[in-house]
């Protein structure tokens, strides 16, 4: 099924916001990314078609932004800050905990396709270090394995209920 069929109304509402279709490029890419779990070659071409944009232009945008994933990611993308302030407050331990609990290394996705773990630079929430964002929702002060467990089980429940899951962060509250 094409995006037009599955998200036609939503796309039209977005296109209506702009004088030029191509201005809607990020918003439509978010929808495509959520629908397909990644921005594959075919997905990017489909977006270009919707926007009447040049295919290469859309690829450029996807290539530029790190939050547009051309490789398959999990239902939830965990992005742990490992920049200096967070590092002082236990970012490496947080990464280690996540790696062992999820059974993956950073930049990998769990076999069940639920989680992708990534390292990122300062998320501008140093006051809550160590911090990560899950589908762009902030979770701070993750200083103990228990807190991590709690977060993961919370997320698993949400995934199971399909409760506001969006790798593009369209459902993020902050």
């Amino acid at each position, binding site marked *: 099924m094409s995006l037009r069929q599955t998200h036609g109304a939503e796309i039209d509402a977005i296109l209506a916001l702009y004088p030029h279709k191509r201005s809607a490029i990020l918003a439509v890419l978010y929808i495509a990314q959520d629908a397909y779990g990644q921005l594959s070659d075919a997905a990017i071409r489909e977006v270009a078609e919707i926007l009447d944009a040049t295919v290469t232009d859309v690829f*450029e945008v996807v290539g530029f932004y790190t939050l547009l994933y051309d490789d398959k990611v999990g239902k939830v993308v965990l992005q742990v800050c490992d920049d200096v302030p967070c590092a002082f407050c236990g970012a490496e331990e947080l990464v280690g905990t996540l790696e062992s609990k999820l059974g993956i290394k950073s930049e990998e996705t769990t076999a069940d396709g639920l989680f992708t773990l990534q390292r990122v630079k300062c998320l501008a929430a140093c006051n809550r270090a160590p911090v990560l964002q899950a589908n762009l929702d902030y979770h701070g002060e993750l200083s103990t394995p228990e807190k991590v467990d709690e977060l993961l089980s919370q997320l698993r429940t949400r995934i199971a209920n399909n409760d506001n899951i969006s790798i593009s962060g369209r459902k993020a509250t902050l």
Partner: protein
Amino acid sequence: MPDVNLIIDGQAVSVPAGTNLVDAARTVEVAIPVFCYHPKLKPVGMCRMCLVEVYTARIDPATRQVVMGPDGLPQLALMMNKLQPACVTPVSEGMVVKTTTEKVKFAQRGVLEFLLTSHPLDCPVCDKGGECPLQNLTMQWGPEVSRFDYSDKVHFEKPIKLSDVIYLDRERCILCSRCVRFQDDIAGDEVLGFDNRGRSWEIISKSEPGFDSKFSGNTTDICPVGALTNADFRFRSRVWEVRSTPSICTHCSVGCNLSLDARHNSLMRVMPRENDDVNEIWLCDKGRMGMRFVESATRVTTPLVRQHGKLVAASWDEALTRIASNLSQIAAKGNGQVAGMMSDSASNEDLYAFRKLITDTFQSTSLDHRPGAVTDVAIDEAIITAGVGMGTSLLSLGKGTAVVVLAADVEEEAPLYVLRLRGIKNRGGVVHVVNSFATKLGTSASSDTRIKAGSEAAYANAFLKLVLEAQVASGFDRRVRNLDDVRNQLSKLLLDTLLEHAGVSRAQLQKVVDAYMAASNAIIVYGRTALQIGASVTQTMANAAMATGKCGKANNGLIALTTGANTFGAVSLGVRPGKDGAAANEFWARAEAGTLRGLLVVGLNPAANNPAAVEGLQTIAKHGFLAVQTMFMNETAELADVVLPQMAIAETDGTITNAERRVQRFRIAMAAPAAMHPTWQVCAQIAERATVATPASKNATAVLSNWNYAVTSDVTDEVAQNNPRYAGVTYTSLDLSINSWGRQANESVYYDGTSYTNTEGNGVQLKTVADDAGAALTVVYSPPVEFEPKGEFGLLMQTPVRAYNGGTWSIDSKLGSRQVAAHVLISSADASRWNISAGDAITVASPIGSSTLPAQIDKNIAAGHVLMPDVAGAPVHLALGAYTRVAIRRAE
């Protein structure tokens, strides 16, 4: 606006406001090094190579007033207290610029050291080596050593194919975006872009097929490193080993200037040569990569004569004598039974000599430059009167200019005009496209009107009606004759009927007319469809130009995208049917009727895709005599009694006249693969051997003295003497160069790329009738021709031009994969009506036959409209003219 005065490296400079510092410095021969800046592209300030010290008046931050020094002059301060990129800094009054200070040199060394951190330094195997800005600038401004670790270089897979003809070496790329900007701004094919960022930044193309542009080769010229190379030249030669010969492209009517670069006697590459009045510094890919046929092993290299039914090698003398004696015998019977046809891409000299041979020696007026198909274009008389005036320079046009493009597919017919017309629009002019199907130029035009198939003449007449109405107020050009008749006839046509026929609203048309009327420079461009329909489009549009005085002066008038590179030459030098003579597409009937018995064909292949011509040619060969001069064996040559080898443009010299009537010289770049003679000489040799009685002196042999040419320019001189329109056109006048945009010696390479500076002449533009102040301009009413689908043939078919048509130029070309295969384009509506899917074989039937070929579906085509591109192998003989009534169905 008054010029701005400033000081650059101690020299006073005065340039127009808005000029950037790089260009300003060049006017006083100060070369500021650049990578990303290109004079034809908008500056972006990406590479920082052009950093200079700029001093402007110091402003007191408190009072916001200029601070005065003790000498009473404004005190100067370093602008923003740091170096400025010269390419994005416009001049301002009183500015002082320093380009050679220690600070500047330090920056230049730094930028180069930085650019080289990840450069592979594989100059010894890089095609750009020897004409590479990065090499040159590093030698002149760079540091001797790098502080960066060699092993830290970023590595990419060595060249990847962006397309079949363009390779990208990402390690060499310095990310200047010249290629991307060329494609976006100049070519209008937005198929290049950047992927990723930081050290993984790279150029990508995601079009299907990759790098889908007819202008892609130009990016290899302006790429300041060896990142982009073209398949045609890769690893063929070092650039300093080649000998460059100025020449002209003959693949279309633009007449682009190019350089044929040969090593020993072998063609290495084709490069653009600048000519502001023609191709600026660009070439289309067909021009650049369509010259390999010259060295094809399949060239005809020796004369062939028919013996016992077979063509066998013969000496030139034998072949020429056979032609002369056979055609002489036929001519001696009188009544113009000899005919000649010659390509309208041949040189003026060859066309002139050919005309002379047929009309003077063989006493016939059956002469033509068209291939003898029903779809042959009409001879365009309007262009001789109302073509764009002398001194026209599209590059100078912008604001105040209106261009109306009617019934033309500019990109397919004359590619470079897309760049030139887009340029006019980019500089503030308007370009209105009106066509029956979607074209590439239309997508970037000011307006793109889609008219109904077959309604071109209706549109033209509606246009003329409104133009004449609008002109009443200001009065008509006093040189115009016959206006009352035209107005009278036009008044019988109802505007509403014409508009309805064209499927256009009054407002749509009015917008185009208003733009045309308001413009101080107004140009009308028409192409193949208009030329096929003939006077009811071409003459009608010419009427509009004449009545409004929008011709006979520079930058105003008509441009016809003609079928050949020298159609104007062919028409004005008489290679066209004369009094009592037949047109090429009447030859075949005359052959069957027994009134045409001898035919000489040069550089044309009438038998291709044309069963009527095949029959006619067979009859001529059987009962008379058929001689063909050609570069390659083809359907026509197979039927001939004698075949002569023909020289390629690279092997001979002469002049040709382009769509804007600019006569340009081409020179001998290499020796022919075997002993051959240029066509003008072949004509002379035939004439010398001919024994035709002339009416004046029965039984005398043809006069020899007037074939007394030693070199090509002797013919050129005779052309100038005998044809008032060519008066003054000599090799000498053609060689006068205008040094167009102020390049300085040796710096062109890094300033604007590797196109060649023109030192050999910009050519001479011929006068139109209207260019003579006293000439009468006769407007002629030409009723709209109508094409209506009828009965079982319920659709209208057109046979549009494709640049990549699989013609002679494509032999051995790297553009092989881009050749368009024979197919039919139909609308989505018709596809569903006949249950046809893309790729299905369908049968196209016209009143004269039918043929089966694959279908493609185009959502931009209107229902009832069918396009069968005129490419090698397409059954275009089904067509009966510009439009043909057809029926389609799925093939069983």
